[in-house]
């Protein structure tokens, strides 16, 4: 019961935060909608990174700190290879590279550390992340590279009749959202319809059961890390097309941690929804709440979106440690 009160109060707070700007007239409905959309778009990118993390966590219990580095590595590979070949070929080749990365990580990192504590594995992936950042930049260079998806960057004005001032929509944002949706649908298909996918689900549910039906755990890890690598590739391409492929991509991915905490470590829908909540939450907070804070406390500028996600996740943790969609954790003696 206590749990529910916590959840409800968090929900009410979030909703109140959502409605407050409208109610207080801090922005016009049109502008409000734009902020909402902006948040959703940022959220899509978080979701994509978090998705990779959840896939790996579900199958191997490893929190992959290196997902951000994988996004950067994949994006760098595609961007640099696309200079010499068509984009689709580069993307395909990129997928091959990510599978290779998965195999190497499984052989050199996961296999020797099997059955280790979660925190040890976390730190190992931190090592992987550093290695990949350095390796990627050594191989591919450290400039800003661009990935051209061939979508116009100029925004379009829509719904001018409905809202005063209309709403600006970016085609590449819409494309990003579509790609993300498509990816999730493909993953769902993969998990529901293919035998490998079903095997993966079995592992997620019960490691021993999976082993007893004869699926080698090593292979499963390779597959899962490959899938996560492909997800990273898609995230990297979407992100890279929007903001350019550059070292900093790897750092923004830190935000995926609060996202999976919010959504639950083992829930794919949780990763998506968690990402969207964080994305919307931090943009709303930055645009509507930060100016108020700045005025009240005479701060040197806003920027609360830097910590908003983490603090939100922290507060959420205190009322519901398993996340929105995660499984309840029981400590056994």
């Amino acid at each position, binding site marked *: 019961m206590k749990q529910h009160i916590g959840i409800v109060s968090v929900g009410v707070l979030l909703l109140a935060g959502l409605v407050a700007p409208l109610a207080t007239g801090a*922005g016009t409905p049109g*502008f409000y909608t*734009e*902020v909402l959309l*902006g*948040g959703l*778009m*940022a959220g899509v990118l978080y979701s994509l990174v978090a998705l990779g993390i959840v896939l790996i966590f579900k199958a191997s219990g490893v929190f992959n700190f290196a997902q951000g580095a994988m996004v950067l590595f994949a994006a760098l590979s595609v961007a640099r290879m696309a200079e010499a070949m068509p984009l689709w070929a580069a993307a395909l080749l990129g997928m091959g590279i990510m599978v290779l990365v998965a195999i190497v990580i499984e052989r050199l990192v996961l296999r020797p550390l099997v059955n280790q504590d979660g925190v040890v594995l976390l730190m190992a992936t931190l090592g992987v992340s550093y290695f990949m950042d350095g390796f990627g*930049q050594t191989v591919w260079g*450290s*400039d*800003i590279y*661009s990935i051209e998806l061939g979508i116009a*960057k*100029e*925004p379009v*004005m829509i719904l001018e009749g409905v809202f005063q001032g209309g709403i*600006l929509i*970016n085609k590449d*944002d819409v494309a990003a959202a579509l790609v993300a949706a498509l990816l999730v649908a493909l993953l769902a298909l993969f998990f529901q319809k293919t035998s490998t996918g079903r095997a993966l689900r079995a592992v997620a549910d019960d490691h021993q059961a999976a082993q007893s039906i004869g699926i080698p755990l090593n292979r499963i890890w390779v597959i899962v890390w490959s899938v996560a690598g492909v997800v990273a590739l898609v995230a990297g391409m979407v992100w890279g097309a*929007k*903001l*350019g492929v*550059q*070292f*900093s*991509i790897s*750092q*923004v991915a830190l935000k995926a941690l609060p996202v999976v905490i919010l959504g639950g470590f083992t829930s794919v829908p949780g990763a998506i929804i968690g990402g969207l909540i964080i994305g919307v939450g*931090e*943009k709303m907070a*930055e*645009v509507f709440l*930060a*100016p108020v804070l700045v005025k009240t406390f005479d701060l*040197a*500028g*806003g*920027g609360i*979106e*830097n910590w908003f996600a983490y603090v939100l996740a922290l507060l959420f943790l205190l009322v519901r440690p398993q996340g929105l969609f995660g499984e309840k954790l029981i400590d056994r003696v």
Partner: protein
Amino acid sequence: MRQATQRKLLAAAAGAVIAAAAATASAPAFAQAKEQFFPLLPYRTGPYAPNGVPFANGYADYLKLVNARDGGINGVKITFEECETGYATDRGVECYERLKGKGPTGATVFQPLSTGITFALTDKAPGDRIPLVTAGYGRADSVDGTVFKWNFPLGGTYWDAADILVQYVGKKEGGLDKLKGKKIALVYHDSPYGKEPIPLLQLRAKMHGFELMLLPVTHPGVEQKATWLQVRQHRPDYVFLWGWGVMNSTALKEAVATGYPREKMYGVWWSGAEPDVTPAGDGAKGYNALTFLAPPGQGQVHKDILKYVYDKGQGSGKKEDVGEVLYNRGLVSGMMAVEGVKRAQFKYGKKPLKGEEVRWGLENLALDAAAIKKLGFTGFMDPIQTTCVDHQGSHSARIETWDGKKWNVAPEVYESDLQIIKPLIRESAAKYAAEKKIPVRDCAKDAG
């Protein structure tokens, strides 16, 4: 068994590391060679690498040119060493400590290309008696040579930049008084660099009655959605961009995405190079930026560099990048350091000089149009003349506009209003002197 071997290997490795650390500790004594040592603090990695690399290449190429073409500075050969800072202050300090004692006479002059590192080194340079050249960045108040004896913000500070931008948009509006009621947003890198222009802009805002919106962007600057939503919400009349590295191109992309006209965006001179606009593609068309010295393009000095350095396979970067905005700025920075040494050689003799001797040279720099022409820099910089009181030497800048392919520099030269800036500098420098308990130099007595 295998594990035991592994452990042994590890132990050996650990031992080697410690031994080597001890070895590097006792730096070998250098023979008194006829060499002038230049420390370089570039950043070729990290989020700021795209901007750090061309600058570092230009700087290094100029030093190579002087050796290859002139056989050094009046016969004193230049040696140099790079130490990667990654734009991080603590790494910068470590690099400074590492390089300051190298060469027969120690480091000649430091140019960290980072305002954060400049702040840290400003405290250290006086103790080590090594000058700092911060051409176009660093502390604005360090123009005042009576307090900042060792700092040389040659050619321009952020207060000049901000002042010129306000003058420029005032002129566009038909007079500074027309700025009343207007809104100007400062989108800035949230670091000492980005914050530096704020006091001047606040002063100007009060003078002319325009509203100043402050929109900080957190390092490294890839997250700007919320910033630009605020721009869209408040629709400022102008946006001043004080970005660096990836922040600049991101800002332009976000401006495109939120439909803010690029024609109303004005960048500082660190937000107006090729890596800043090319990632934004066509979206960057119409965007303006300041350029204080060294516009893009090639002149006599570039021909020499291609001939003496690149054709011999000694170039630091790619041949086609010679002449980029930041490359040229590195070139000019290198040149001014070398000219500082040359000037000092007049006084102290044609031999390797100590940092404090070079400091005198930098304080008595006089590069007129003829001198600039002789160096092959005609069209790339304005004349510059430093004194004990004025460590800057030049207060002018131009406006350049990106046409989608290249930067076009408008011919008008703007001068910052010293009436406004000087009192600010004096006040700020005095505060610094009081905080650090530094005695103020009397320029009439203390020429050296």
